[in-house]
């Protein structure tokens, strides 16, 4: 077992764009669930909309990279309105069901051959990087140290992602401390009480849905930025990974999702490296192939999610009084 390699890979994942994308998506979900109490089980759908929105705009419509991002944001807003308009006046479980379905519909639309010209169907989309890379101010070369050694392109992606992350975190933080945030917190607990005080609860919930959705879409963009857009990524399990990360860190806080996502992805990276190695070396997992051992991590995620919900629903950073599922 090459522990040095395993640890190196694990540590490196802290700065990986995938991790950043995850943080963004979980911040979006934090706005939905942690702040507004909206049950969104289709956050992967928002990520897909973001990623495809970006790639399609750049590849098919020749938009510059920032144009593609604006399209992603617009598409997320439309998607949120479509989801929310029929469901936000109903009980929360209806939104949950609709979001699962909507995310799957989105993914299947991206997968189907019918729109192959735009979406690349099963092959996905790639090769949209030129515009973004052209905007890179960093001169050519390799920078960094140890496991954090990257090319100027890789650094550009990471710096950009961190900038987006900073803006999103600031936005979430500012909103949570504002009077708007206060109304949202009230709505999460009891909509009727807030209505009786003259607030338009539907409008507030829609705003939260849109804002969180845009964060999720930006997560999708950041995910796709360095690599490719692949429909097999945006499946329901991605949504549940993000839920796990959110609940692990603390759903009703601003830094909880950040913490939870980083821990989650570092753990994933660790397991992806360790489990197959264990299977090969012999030992506990001897009877499994390295493929099987690798997928063992999904089982562990599932168990982890259950344990969190049962024993510590407020997550690491959360306040127990604020978030319990047992009323």
């Amino acid at each position, binding site marked *: 077992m090459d522990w040095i390699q395993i640890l190196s890979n694990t540590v490196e994942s802290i700065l990986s764009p995938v991790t950043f994308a995850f943080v963004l998506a979980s911040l979006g979900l934090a706005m939905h669930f942690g702040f507004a109490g909206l049950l969104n089980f289709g956050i992967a759908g928002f990520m897909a909309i973001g990623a495809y929105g970006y790639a399609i705009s750049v590849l098919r419509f020749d938009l510059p990279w920032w144009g593609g991002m604006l399209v992603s944001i617009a598409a997320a807003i439309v998607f949120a309105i479509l989801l929310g308009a029929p469901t936000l006046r109903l009980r929360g479980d209806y939104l949950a069901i609709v979001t699962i379905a909507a995310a799957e519909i989105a993914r299947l639309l991206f997968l189907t051959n019918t729109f192959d010209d735009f979406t690349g169907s099963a092959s996905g989309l790639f090769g949209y990087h030129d515009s973004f890379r052209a905007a890179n101010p960093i001169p050519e070369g390799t920078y960094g140290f140890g496991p954090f050694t990257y090319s100027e392109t890789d650094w550009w992606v990471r710096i950009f992602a961190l900038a987006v992350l900073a803006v999103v975190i600031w936005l979430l933080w500012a909103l949570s401390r*504002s009077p708007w945030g206060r109304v949202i917190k009230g709505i999460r607990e009891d909509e009727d009480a807030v*209505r*009786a*005080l*003259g607030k338009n609860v539907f409008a507030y919930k829609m705003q939260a849905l849109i804002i969180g959705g845009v964060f999720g879409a930006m997560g999708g963009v950041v995910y796709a930025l360095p690599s490719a857009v692949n429909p097999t990524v945006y499946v329901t399990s991605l949504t549940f990974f993000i839920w796990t990360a959110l609940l692990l860190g603390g759903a009703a806080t601003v830094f909880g999702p950040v913490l939870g996502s980083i821990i989650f992805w570092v753990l994933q990276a660790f397991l992806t490296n360790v489990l197959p190695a264990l299977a090969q070396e012999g030992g506990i997992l001897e009877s499994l192939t390295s493929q099987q051992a690798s997928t063992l991590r999904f089982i562990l995620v599932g168990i982890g999610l259950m344990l969190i919900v049962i024993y510590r629903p407020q997550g690491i950073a959360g306040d127990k009084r604020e978030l319990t599922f047992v009323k």
Partner: protein
Amino acid sequence: MSNSEPVKATGLHVGEASPGVAKVDPILKASNVTRKFGGLTAVNVEHVEIPRGAITALIGPNGAGKTTFFNLLTGFDSPDTGTMEFNGKSLSGMRSHQIAKLGQVRTFQLTKALSLLTVLENMKLGATDQAGEKILGSLIPQIWRKQEAEIEKRAEELLRRFKLYEKKEDFAASLSGGQRKLLEMARALMTNPTLVMLDEPMAGVNPALTESLLEHVLDLKKEGMTVLFVEHDMHMVRHIADWVIVMAEGEIVAEGPPDQVMKEQAVIDAYLGSHQETDLGVVTGRIDIIDDGEKK
């Protein structure tokens, strides 16, 4: 705590006091309002007017439709038929938050103190004009900080009045049931309402706290607000209500000043019972047993 009887408003009605009688200065009017749930007619009110500046009690047995009627008047439910007017403005098709903005505020039978917010935050939520509550305004603190300070001052004043000031930083969850009732009332006042609608404000409140709650309700009238409340506590009704409306089986069966209404036989039979003034120890024959001294 004043022990003198509150001054009752008189001359509120036009003509003889009967169900649906017109009021000299009505703040709220409702006509031909019906609400059915399946085959059951929950509310069937031909006409009712609520007098401005007075305290009106809505009483009646369980299932009479009081809370349903309340919900219809405040927009938390929509009537199948009928028209409702608040200060001359039609309430048709208006949602609960829009009606609340017009100056009508309500409390709930099961207190809705938002437990995950602090007492002070609960109060600040009641303010209706905070620009920072709009999404764009919220991002620019310069816009809402000044308002926030004013709102906080107003909130603290009200908290002092309701004796909740010391608890202002505590989560509302830590308050006792009676304190939550006070908080809900205080929070409702933050909206500067003209009509305050209280749904069983004394439910679950122990008798000693009832007196201070009543004083607060009387203060509302002194400050020019109109009060409509649903209650089962007849002593409260008799003590502070200027006008009483009796509902039974969805309809209004009696209206008038409390003393008059509570003497009507129909009301006694259906609602008050004939033992209102008697000691149940006498009625059940227990007093003799106890005086006997033999029982123990």
